[in-house]
């Protein structure tokens, strides 16, 4: 907890040194990666389509902030779509972000109900395929604006009173959102619920035999992860005032996997560290065009072959070797080995 408080202080002072928009991008992706890590590190489920929650929440938040009115389709395809129109004025940022998060949670419930039926490799493939389906839906749906995306999303005063047009002021809002999301993840991990999740990761059959409704636990974890990924996406839409197709592509899903892998799967702070590194690298190499893809692929390959525990994972292992605090030794790192 002291580490966390120190990091929050660091975050509060960081804009003095680093460009606030870059920091906000890092925070959004750190939250996204931490939400993803909840599934892979603590439940053992590799969700290869997490970008669908990230990007779709961005679209929803952007739409709520810019237009407000929601038109829901209902009816059958062959009988013609009918529209249920809910007229809302364009919302303030916190309500738009909340709306995006709730929609992401709902999407997570639907996707999770389908995907939880398979494990391991199949789960990854199913989430990837479902994310691609969401991608094609986003390409075709009217409210997303297709290839253009939703542009010029307005940043109304927060809660109606506090002006956040200035990037520096909005940075502290984003920092608060990140802390809230991170605390939710932290409380989820360090709780009886989190212990059951770890039990499921280590030996699902034994957890079932002990009487736990394993599917329900996995689904709840999936929905929490999806909601927090949506929170990250909605916040990102408000930061950049843009929601586009790149946020729902499978390349984005791959990037969050890379961030978590590099930072350390199954560690608390690993994904945030990984996000910072990868975003910094992308920024630094932005002028090199296609080489960014090649370098990301190379980092993937190297990380999987020799660096599986990630940066934070290696650090914790080093501390453990030197007989560190009991807290560090109790974290199991990395993917569970299959029971043979």
């Amino acid at each position, binding site marked *: 907890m002291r580490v966390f408080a120190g990091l929050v202080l660091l975050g509060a002072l960081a804009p003095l040194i680093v460009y606030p928009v870059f920091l906000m991008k890092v925070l959004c992706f750190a939250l996204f990666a931490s939400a993803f890590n909840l599934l892979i590190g603590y439940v053992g489920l590799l969700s290869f389509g997490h970008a669908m929650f990230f990007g779709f929440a961005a679209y929803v938040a952007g739409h709520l902030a810019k237009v407000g009115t929601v038109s829901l389709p209902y009816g059958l395809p*062959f009988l013609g779509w009918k529209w249920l129109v809910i007229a809302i004025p364009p919302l303030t940022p916190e309500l738009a972000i909340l709306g995006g998060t709730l929609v992401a949670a709902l999407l997570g419930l639907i996707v999770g109900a389908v995907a939880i039926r398979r494990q391991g490799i199949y789960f990854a493939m199913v989430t990837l395929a479902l994310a691609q*389906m969401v991608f094609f839906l986003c390409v075709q749906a009217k409210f997303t604006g297709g290839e253009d995306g939703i542009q010029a999303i307005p940043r109304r005063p927060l809660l109606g009173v506090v002006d956040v047009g200035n990037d520096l002021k909005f940075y502290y809002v984003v920092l608060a959102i990140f802390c809230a999301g991170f605390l939710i993840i932290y409380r989820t991990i360090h709780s009886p619920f989190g212990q059951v999740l770890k039990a499921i990761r280590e030996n699902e059959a034994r957890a079932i035999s002990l009487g736990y409704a394993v599917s329900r636990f996995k689904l709840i974890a999936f929905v929490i992860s999806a909601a927090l990924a949506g929170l990250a996406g909605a916040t990102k839409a408000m930061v950049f005032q843009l929601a586009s197709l790149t946020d729902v592509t499978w390349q984005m899903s791959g990037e969050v996997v890379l961030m978590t892998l590099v930072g350390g799967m199954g560690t608390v702070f690993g994904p945030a560290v990984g996000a910072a590194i990868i975003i910094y690298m992308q920024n630094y190499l932005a002028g090199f065009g296609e080489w960014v893809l090649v370098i990301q*692929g190379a980092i993937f*390959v190297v990380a*999987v072959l020799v660096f599986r525990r990630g940066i934070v994972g290696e650090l914790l292992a080093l501390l453990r070797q030197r007989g560190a605090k009991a807290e560090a030794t109790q974290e199991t790192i990395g993917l*569970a080995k299959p029971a043979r």
Partner: protein
Amino acid sequence: MFELIGVPPQALFGQLLLGLINGAFYALLSLGLAVIFGLMNVINFTHGAQYMMGAFSAWMLLSYFGIPYWGALILAPIMVGLFGVLIERLFISRLYHLDHLYGLLLTFGLALIVEGLFRREYGISGLPYANPIPGGTNLGFMFLPWYRGWVVVFSLTVCLATWFVIEKTQLGAYLRAATERPDLVQAFGINVPRMITLTYGFGVGLAALAGVLAAPIYSVNPVMGANLIIVVFAVVVIGGMGSIMGSIITGFGLGVIEGLTKVFYPEASNTVIFIIMAVVLMLRPQGLFGTPK
């Protein structure tokens, strides 16, 4: 009858043929994935990139060496297969003792590298590749281009030949035995690691063959494999990775269904395979031809 459906026969059968062709590619690619996964328990995400490499090899053989399509049909799968053997020996073989998901991540990284390098070199817009058998024949209810008919017939032949080798020959028996108990099979004196390497090379060669077949139809560009591989994953989930014949049937079947959807409800044509996947997962999680756990 066609007036009742409201669709002219040319459109219906034209899309059906296109659906068969797409199905042929789905079948070839999911067959390669199933063969590789069956023996190595590794999901080869690089499959899409290797499909693209096959198409590019055909193009390069033509542009740099003047080797026409029929030579490329044999050479390209061998070249890309050798590349597959190389990455298996260097990278993938180091992960067999770990969780299968690491194999997926590794091949994903390799796919990014390959795609990035090709994009760097050739850009994203496509390169043209000449149709080796131009022209076609008018069958009355539709126009059948020779090349597309050739693609369907040839891929069906290759799929059935692969099925025959795996299910009915001694080599296939060794392969299936090594899938179930590699340690015992190795105790009998069969070189299992070499068989694994060659199997991976064969699966990669199948992907490259699909790429060569695709080159005259779709233009040769570095991103041709990326979106296709995800649809192939959905095909594999629907079919279940258990049986070879299952992959072939599912691949062709889903291609046809996608083609029909393009005729009757075009907006859903991109997503119909994923919707079917969701339905199959709800009703029969192990896939249509998979074995229940």
